[in-house]
């Protein structure tokens, strides 16, 4: 595990090691901007967390990166190519996978159907069955529940299913919107550990929006803070953990 000491000083933006670079992004809904001039980056294999008060524009930023919302301005580059205006359905084929904060499964469909839908971008049948085996290995609870309707599982199981759906598309970059929402503390911890494991073992890059700042900081390398639609701070997770109080950032 990379201790915070080993994390080098922040490399310059746009360095080749960056999986995702967002520059000067503004975005919103119905012509109404919610995010103003946001810039951030995620290195390969890095876990970056984006925190801030509710309504600060974190989710909008994430949704714009994954293509659900169109950016009003600014650029989103993924592994060196500009994907600002690539549609969501295409981005998942490029390896960018988003998990929303709510309604993150197909709740009326079976676990099996959920995972099959997650695997749509993978056309090779052999690769698909290999991926599903890995997902079952990672989340053994899903293997025993393939017939169960997703909406009837517990909150934690549904979160795991959402990660499973996402992994089925063999992503390189995971965009997670508040995976801790509505979960008991022990389950939150388990989910966070799984995310960390994914980043370390599979080299996935992760951009994690979190309300539960303390939990997010435990696994993240770096952190961005948003307030009222702007990124107001970039910091290593280590230094952020050492802050006495977080209130003044919210």
């Amino acid at each position: 595990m990379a201790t915070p000491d080993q994390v080098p000083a922040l490399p310059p933006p746009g360095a080749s090691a960056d999986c995702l670079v967002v520059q000067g992004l503004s975005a919103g809904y119905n012509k109404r901007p919610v995010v103003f001039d946001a810039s951030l980056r995620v290195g390969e294999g890095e876990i970056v967390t984006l925190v801030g008060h509710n309504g600060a524009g974190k989710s909008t930023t994430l949704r714009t990166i994954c293509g659900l919302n169109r950016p009003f301005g600014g650029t989103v580059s993924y592994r060196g190519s500009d994907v600002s205006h690539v549609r969501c359905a295409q981005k998942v084929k490029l390896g960018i996978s988003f998990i929303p904060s709510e309604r993150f499964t197909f709740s009326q469909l079976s676990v099996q159907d959920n995972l099959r839908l997650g695997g749509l971008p993978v056309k090779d049948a052999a690769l698909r069955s290999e991926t599903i085996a890995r997902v079952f290995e990672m989340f053994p609870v899903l293997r025993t529940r393939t017939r169960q309707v997703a909406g009837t599982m517990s909150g934690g199981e549904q979160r795991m299913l959402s990660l499973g759906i996402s992994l089925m598309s063999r992503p390189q970059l995971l965009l997670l919107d508040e995976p801790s929402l509505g979960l008991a503390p022990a389950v939150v911890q388990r989910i966070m550990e799984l995310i960390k494991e994914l980043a370390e073992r599979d080299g996935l890059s992760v951009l994690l929006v979190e309300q539960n700042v303390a939990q997010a900081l435990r696994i993240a390398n770096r952190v961005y803070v948003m307030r009222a639609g702007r990124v107001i701070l970039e910091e290593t997770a280590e230094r952020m953990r050492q802050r006495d109080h977080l209130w003044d950032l919210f």
Partner: protein
Amino acid sequence: MEYQIDIFNQMLIFAIFALSLNLLIGYGGQVSVAHAALGAAGGYTAAYLSVEYGVPYIPATLFAIGAGTLIGTAVSVPALRLSMDYLILLTLSLSTVLLTLIVSLKYFGGSYGLLGIGGVSVFGKDIVRPSDYLKILLPLLVVLFLACWRLGHSPFGRVLKGIREDEIATRSLGKDVFMYKVGLFAITSAMAGLGGAALVYYSQIASPSQFSFDVATTMIAMIIIGGMGNLWGSLLGVVLVVVSRPVLEKQVNASPEDASLYRLIIYGAALVVVMRLRPEGLIPESASLRAGVAWIRRLAGRLPAPPAPAAGSADATPPHIAAARVARARPGNGLVEDVSQLEAAVQVTGLVKHFGGIRAVDGLDFRLAAGRITGLVGPNGAGKTTVFNLITGAIRPDAGVVTLRGNNITNIPPHRVARRGMVRSFQDVRTLPRLSVLENVALAVPNQPGEHLGNLFFRPGSTARAGREAREKAIEALRFVGMESRLEYPAGALGYGEQKLVALARMLATGADVLLLDEPASGIDQSWLDPILEVILQTRDMGKTICIVEHNLHVVERLADWVYFMEAGIVTAQGTMRDLISQPRLAEVYFGNA
């Protein structure tokens, strides 16, 4: 000459239907496909009474109006409680069923219809020729047009447009949305019944083809092509549609039968094209007679074009208040006040609401001190917005009591809570986009005589006076928030920050003294934050009681005199924002534990 008059008379009769549909769809935003069928109900009632019982013209017409109103209202009441889909579904079904029954029931002459309708005689004069009919139809239409105009351009009409734009926002300002919709449906059904009787008497036959689906769609085409929400547009639509028949028959040299097919194809295509390319129709809602005259004169090259109002945007500069002081002393000479000593404007006791198995609100107690700003904070999902919905009556609580100035208001519907003096704002502002800023705020002024039909038609003097007063009140409220320079802009063209201020002015115009603000600072650019916060503070200084739900804790700290901390549906701490911040346990709840 009689031929031209005949065409003109047909226009007059169709205009009755077009005015009625435009009031309903264009002004009230309620879609009905049944108005032609309601015309059939009226027409067949009149015809049947005349043929079978020899009932004379005027009483038969009154029965026709009654039949249209009765059937229309009875069918619409259940549907108007629900979303628009159900209104379309039910009116469509009503239309299908009425037309089928007319054909299949033997009393009504099947597909041939009812013949032998009595002659029309008014004041002892027999009316036979088209030019005779003109003498009664034209005055009738003028009177109807004026009445519709009065209705549409009164406080009553403003409420209708409010309903069209956003029912929930209109209700939150104290208007009984459901009753307005039912009233509107009854009025327009009555007009359809009248139109049906007029058509049947004029053509001296009641037949299914007069009220068929083709006719129903033609009527809708008239108001869509002409322009929804503008009565002149409907008249233009009627003229275009009715005139197209002789024009097609003569100019294109088509047989009457083919010409009618061409016409219907053209109307159908026109509906699709207008919806796609010019949804506001030929004469848009905002157009007025004066603007029309000016436009014609400009065409003639006599007037320069007026400067187009620059559409507001997020970049518009904040109003002058930006310059005002932002740091200010809190009430109570800057000392921390014990708000529990102050009178409670609102007292909430033991409030409970479960959704399925989820306890959204679970035994909540809090009070809003009169003349102070109270903040409600807590982590995501703590149930804060649900609290607003519960205390304003938008959702019924499972248990608990809400009192406003000592009066129990639990389970009272939202519009009555608003009238008692407690109004709320919405996270997504919910201004009424196609109404002007002034109309948005004037709508909120309570107790306007012009919202009642009786006053509109029988007490014009006092109604007009009250209308001017409402306008003054609205302008005053807009001046207070610094938006008086934007009176005539459509609210939807404003930037988001400006819309938040308009929404605030709207709440002030209701005269309510308790204001519940749902995320007043969310989604606005930094440059708008100070002006909005300043206005909220000034509102408190006027003596209003304010409650805010807000996630930006800096905003809460600047505004709130007292803060309740909510988690999992109950209040777990209270104090000033500073007090709360200093409690490590709350930080853990808010930011999670490591």
